[in-house]
């Protein structure tokens, strides 16, 4: 009897701050990811077990974060932001150049990519800021928040890492939007953005411009920049309604797909499981998104609402941008498909966010509004 009690205690300890609905959704997605990865990697079990380790680490971090009450996390917002910003400046000054981009910082024991940290730090920082000035929210606060956002975005853009910069800018914008940024300003920003397109175009790197040109007409350069888009479109299209079957995707199995276990893993999935598979996958994502939205809507404080909303919406944008670029409606920016693409860093970042959501959902608050 003693033993049963112990197990019950342990179970309680483990699941106390875990949102089981959300967890099941996440596990289902990660399961799909592992199955697809096995096929994409050419039945290479080593890669799959690697990813399992990544998932375990990420789940542990998620659990840890879920166990931390939000008021503690809130205190971390400013130091985390400042630390991240300092690291980004460090990258700009001393960063290692890899494939023509300066993204990594060597800190002796290991190399880190500070832009990953910013993916969490930005929503935290901005949510913290709005939370702090909640009562007296004025125009000026939105301006300050925008500056807080733009500092790291510009630094990341200059690395250059367009994909990450866009995702971080998006996560910050969601905070601004949810915090009540006036519609007029949003409209104004949209107009300004449209007007500044030519300027942005001249500021862009050659390869970035090429990617956009390629999106408009991938056949222009079928073996160069257009290759990725063409091959992944072929993979998806040839999958048809029911797909070619697991491990039977010729585009994937014969290496026609680029980066098929990371950014382009969706093409492998799509080729092998067809439109039916895509439908189920999108529904699964929507279930997770729905749960996250519920948590956001029920979040007790301004801070938690903003942070939960930002995490939820950024997750959606990740999915859209990745699937969009793989299916050829968006330019190719290196954005992984959340919970499915191979890679530890993005998995950790994602689950860290979900950990925060769980913490918001499961920690008792004094008063619910």
């Amino acid at each position, binding site marked *: 009897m003693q033993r049963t009690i112990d197990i019950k205690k342990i179970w309680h300890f483990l699941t106390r701050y875990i949102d089981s609905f959300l967890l099941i959704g996440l596990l289902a997605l990660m399961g799909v990811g592992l199955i697809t990865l096995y096929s994409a990697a050419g039945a290479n079990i080593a890669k799959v077990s690697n990813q399992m380790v990544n998932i375990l680490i990420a789940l542990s971090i998620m659990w840890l974060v879920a166990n931390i009450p939000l008021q503690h996390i809130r205190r971390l917002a400013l130091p985390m932001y400042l630390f991240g910003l300092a690291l980004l400046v460090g990258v700009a000054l001393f960063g290692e150049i890899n494939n023509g981009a300066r993204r990594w910082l060597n800190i002796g024991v290991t190399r880190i990519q500070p832009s990953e940290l910013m993916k969490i730090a930005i929503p935290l920082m901005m949510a913290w800021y709005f939370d702090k000035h909640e009562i007296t929210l004025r125009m000026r606060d939105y301006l300050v928040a925008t500056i807080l956002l733009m500092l790291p975005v510009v630094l990341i853009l200059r690395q250059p890492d367009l994909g990450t910069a866009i995702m971080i800018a998006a996560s910050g914008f969601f905070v601004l939007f949810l915090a009540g940024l006036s519609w007029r300003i949003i409209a104004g920003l949209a107009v300004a953005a449209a007007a500044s397109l030519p300027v942005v175009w001249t500021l862009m790197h050659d390869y970035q411009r090429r990617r956009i040109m390629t999106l408009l007409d991938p056949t222009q350069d079928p073996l160069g920049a257009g290759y990725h888009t063409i091959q992944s479109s072929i993979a998806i*299209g*040839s*999958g048809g*309604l029911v797909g070619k079957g697991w491990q039977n995707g010729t585009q994937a199995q*014969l*290496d*026609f797909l680029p980066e098929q276990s990371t950014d382009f893993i969706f093409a492998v999935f799509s080729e092998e499981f067809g*439109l039916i598979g895509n439908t189920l996958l999108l529904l699964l994502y929507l279930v997770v998104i729905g749960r996250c939205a519920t948590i956001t809507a029920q979040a007790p404080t*301004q801070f938690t609402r903003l942070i939960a909303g930002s995490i939820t919406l950024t997750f959606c944008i990740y999915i859209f941008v990745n699937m*969009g670029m793989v299916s050829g409606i968006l330019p190719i920016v290196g954005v992984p498909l959340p919970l499915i693409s191979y890679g530890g860093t993005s998995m950790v970042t994602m689950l860290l966010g979900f950990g925060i959501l769980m913490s918001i959902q499961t920690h008792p608050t004094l008063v619910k509004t």
Partner: protein
Amino acid sequence: MKQYVELRNHPFELSKFRFRLLISIGFVLILFAILYARFYYLQIVQQEHYHTLAEANRISILPLVPNRGLILDRNGKPLAQNYSAYTLEIIPKKIKDLDATLDELATVIDITPTDRQRFKKLLKESKRFKSLPIRGRLTDAEIAAFATNRYRFPGIEIKARVFRQYPEKEIVSHVVGYISRINDQDLEQLELNRELPNYRGSQHIGKIGLEQSYERQLHGTIGFEEVETDAAGRSIRVLSRTPPTPGNNLILSLDLGLQQAAEKAFGERRGALVALDPNNGEVLAFVSKPGYDNNLFIGGIDQENWKLLNNSIDRPLNNRALRGVYPPGSTFKPFMALAALELGKRTPEYSMSDPGYFSLPGSAHRFRDWKPGGHGRVDLHKSIVVSCDTYYYSLANDLGIDNIHSFIGQFGLGRKTGIDVEGEASGLLPSSAWKMNQYKQKWFAGDTISVAIGQGYNLTTPLQLAFATMIIANNGKAYQPRFVKQIQNSQTGEIENIPPNLLYTVNLKPKNLEVVKNALVDVTRPGGTAARASANAAYTFAGKTGTSQVVAIKQGEKYNEKTINERHRDHAMFIAYAPAENPQIALAILVENTGTGGSTAAPIARQVFDYYLLGEMPETTVALLDEPGEDHVHDHL
């Protein structure tokens, strides 16, 4: 503390937040709908299109190049054969820095500067995605060395290829010709003939000689292999295979031994020899000296060798037997004699007195005989045996150019024989109509005189002379000369005989023929112009000597073989057949810049006959014989 503040939060703020969240989620749903529309478009609307593209990605159709047919002599000795070897090939498109890669490659496998040069030349002429050889004939050690380093050289591969080889080189180069890499012109021609699909994967095509003329027989039919390939182009597995049909083998009538005997007899002299079988027109020997090593052309000839061959004063690339045109000289006389008899302008009994020259009525101009003082009384028989010029001067005047043209034209002089190889020259047998057409001038009686002895406007190829000689030897049958006797299916071994092609028969009275043929036999007997060459022959042999002039000598000037530039010396000519009573071989010989036919050309004929009829291979090159004087007749300006 925080929660305390939260207490004062306005419910309005919360509903405003929730409204914004709702808008955001609605926006997300719109984005997802866009994605879904895109998937539907790709996977349902365009599914077939992308399915086709994926299959095209996956399946490559690899051409299987057929093995080229062999070329064999009449006894089955190979004149063109194949061997397989490994080559190292580069696909230029897959290499970023070609020079650096070649430098690196040179550390693994020997690459000479010549290899590089040739490769660069190929590179200029070829498409970037075509596989080009950098080294041929790899040794086992080299194959092993490359295999272990292969990972360092993407885009470079070892390929097993079949190569052409001409074991007899110079000896039969002008017959066999050569294949070489397909160039843009060839591609255009293939496209025009709708043969391009059959040449997918083929690297070579016949350029000249039998290799060119029998390209369709030799090339064979392409096969295909459907192969599943990965993105790097590596084959994963074969899905289906249609094997190629190898080209047919050509079995020539050419006798390699005879060819070698003729070559040997020529030695270092320049010239040509064509020997035909009078019973069917088969080419027994076909020599053009000098020849060249046709193997040099297969992989693309290098600059140095090309210059050597192309700039040589001996012009080894010139096929003299087929394309060289020369005045037939006195070898023209037997045909003139036949014309005289057949057209009733002379009888065998008629004789004339030869003062050593001929003048047209009412003209002081003297057309001189080669023998000062003349030959005395000359009838038709003697005119051939001693090669009297004056007899033919007067005969020509009686016949007139257009009779000569139409009668001798029947022997094929001055037009293509229709031999089964491309590039034949037509030469010229003049007529008044031709001169009017060419020079807008009427024909003068004086023009006819030099034509009579095979000079003047007369131009024939050695092949035409052999053809004409064959027609005399076989009493009028004009067989189309041809190299290829049989075509062998290289898979079944089945042999298809190509029957002799009798083009037409020249209608000749047997008694007239007999007169001329008897005279031709006496040419080779004591008193004749080729007596020395045929002394002690074990068979009777008929022939006619001739001299073909290279430069004109002015009226009153004397031709002196010793003082004239070697390249301006006369060409020696000889036509002959043997055995005289039942001819098995008829030939024409040209030896450039060596003087008279009796002294240099006839001895070559003797050796060729000895080999063909008796099986005796000549020991050495024939020596110059000291024959009695020959017809050194020259045009007078």
